[in-house]
């Protein structure tokens, strides 16, 4: 039989008032359900917290003290556009509706949030440190952010990062996790130093296989011993010019929700390799074995499977480059237009490590396709903007579908692609609804 553990959460979950009494000897005012009746319990709770509780008489009964369990507010998301869609508030997972991704360079307030743990508190840029260590580094070296800026040349790139689970909501049978529709993708302008310059400075050895990052985000259980997420990429990807240790997004501090003051940005791969609140990079002589590197996290079956099939861990492979994909960012879905009206369409397309070669749109559910104008990327791993215009002659309900093709000739599927247990890599064509009246 499993050993029964009793923790503060369990006690409070069972019965908060009783937990108050058991843990602290606390009795609250039964009328106001606040405070500490005859001060019972206040001293014990104060001692546990290491400080006196200010406004103790206002403290509601049955509340785990904030210091012991910082609750996350679900009505306050600093620095983010109010129309972003909150999928989860503990941890924060917030997606951007397609029409808000219309900018070529995604503004900070429209950049999606995909957090695995709790956002670190009390971030101090001046004392922040990044350590480079691991089997393939002879001597660990620690840098301050100021030292990184001083020792290495800074580069700025527009880099597309997309959550591996973007599009998960469409899988059938459903896959567990945050039910992203299309909005866990963005392309901002990132400034930082090249990881390769830093690793060369640290005399990276030739036996390096993988890098693994560590960040300061706290595990949901608030147990500091538990690593929230520690993923990475093969050394070849790590040493690409565009792999950055970044401190700025669009010329300003990175938003706290997106990894301020320091993060990795590794374009074209699942965003989970771009570690946030970065404090350590280990250069490994094995495939990194950090938290969420193991199956089934961020892995897909090595071979196609039937929907709902059970797949053994050893039959799963790590996701590397993301597949070709595109979005229609203008107009917003639901547009009502007049017969013959010229409708301008635009959006972006991206293809993992590759460039997008062609972009097509269809207004007849994929029966015929019209080629769109596609701009080249400003730099490797940035999304490419496209535009087209259409005019519809008959009344009725239409859908505009957008399909990108990468430089190897691989296109987006029109239905949801191969089912996989965790619901990754849905790159089905984006669709918007139009009505002609």
């Amino acid at each position: 039989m499993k050993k029964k553990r009793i923790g503060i959460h369990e006690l409070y979950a069972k019965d908060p008032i009783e937990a108050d009494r058991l843990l602290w000897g606390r009795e609250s005012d039964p009328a106001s359900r606040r405070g500490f009746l005859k001060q019972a319990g206040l001293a014990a709770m104060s001692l546990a917290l290491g400080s006196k509780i200010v406004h103790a008489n206002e403290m509601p009964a049955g509340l785990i003290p904030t210091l012991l369990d910082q609750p996350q507010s679900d009505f306050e998301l600093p620095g983010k556009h109010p129309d972003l869609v909150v999928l989860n508030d503990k941890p924060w997972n917030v997606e951007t509706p397609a029409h808000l991704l219309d900018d070529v360079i995604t503004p900070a307030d429209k950049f999606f949030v995909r957090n695995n743990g709790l956002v670190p508190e009390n971030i101090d840029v001046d004392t922040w440190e990044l350590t480079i260590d691991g089997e393939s580094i002879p001597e660990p070296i620690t840098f301050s952010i100021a030292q990184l800026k001083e020792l290495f040349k800074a580069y700025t790139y527009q880099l597309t990062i997309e959550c591996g689970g973007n599009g998960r909501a469409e899988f059938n049978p459903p896959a567990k996790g945050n039910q992203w529709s299309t909005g866990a993708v963005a392309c901002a302008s990132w400034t930082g130093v090249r990881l390769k310059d830093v690793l060369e400075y640290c005399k990276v050895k030739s036996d390096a296989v993988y890098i693994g990052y560590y960040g300061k985000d706290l595990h949901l259980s608030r147990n500091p011993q538990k690593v929230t997420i520690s993923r990475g990429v093969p050394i070849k990807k790590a040493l690409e010019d565009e792999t950055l240790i970044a401190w700025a997004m669009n010329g300003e501090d990175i938003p706290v929700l997106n990894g301020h003051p320091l993060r990795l940005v590794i374009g074209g791969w699942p965003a989970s390799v771009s570690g946030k609140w970065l404090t350590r990079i280990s250069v490994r002589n094995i495939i990194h074995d950090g938290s969420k590197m193991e199956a089934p996290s961020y892995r897909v079956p090595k071979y196609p499977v039937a929907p709902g099939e059970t797949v053994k861990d050893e039959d799963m492979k790590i996701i590397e480059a993301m597949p070709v994909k595109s979005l229609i960012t203008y107009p917003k879905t639901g547009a009502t237009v007049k017969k013959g009206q010229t409708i301008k369409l635009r959006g972006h397309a991206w293809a993992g490590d590759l460039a997008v070669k062609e972009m097509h749109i269809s207004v007849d559910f994929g029966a015929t396709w019209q080629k769109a104008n596609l701009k080249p990327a400003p730099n490797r791993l940035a999304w490419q903007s496209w535009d087209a215009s259409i005019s519809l002659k008959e009344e009725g309900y239409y859908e505009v579908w957008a399909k990108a093709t990468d430089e190897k000739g691989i296109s987006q599927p029109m239905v949801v692609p191969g089912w996989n247990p965790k619901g990754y890599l849905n790159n089905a064509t984006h669709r918007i609804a139009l009505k002609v009246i």
Partner: protein
Amino acid sequence: MSKEEKELRKDELDLVQRIVKRMNVLVYASLFIVLVAMFNIMAPDTAERWFGETEKEALPEEVVAAISDDLIENGIHVKTGLIVDDGFNQVKATCLACHSAKLVTQNRADREGWKKMIRWMQETQNLWDLGQNEDIILDYLAKNYAPEDKGRRAPLKNIEWYTLED
């Protein structure tokens, strides 16, 4: 600051000072916690009954209502967004101790699927043994958050129509 508040503050300070001088209350409290924990480890069933009974005694209805913020609209608990049905209280107390209700409400699975999620949380996320509550929770989830057959591609939903000018 009113006279009453001053007195309260003085009382608090007196108490804290007294505790710092004589740590015995803390020792008793720790001892009590250890005893409770040991009781749970050594006699979990008795502990369950004992806890269960005190729970009923210790919670007057209006207290439950106030701390749980019980506004319900169209069968949905407004604060959490959860469907109110048998097992709602167990789900609220158990699942929401650690994560957002949105992690429940945005997911769909059959009983076996929900059970897998619970096992995964127990293996990797410090979730405790749910005891008798497990069946109640699974019944609730499997009934209220069951998968729908979406086919290979569902029709576009929730479209807000607007006029697009030239």
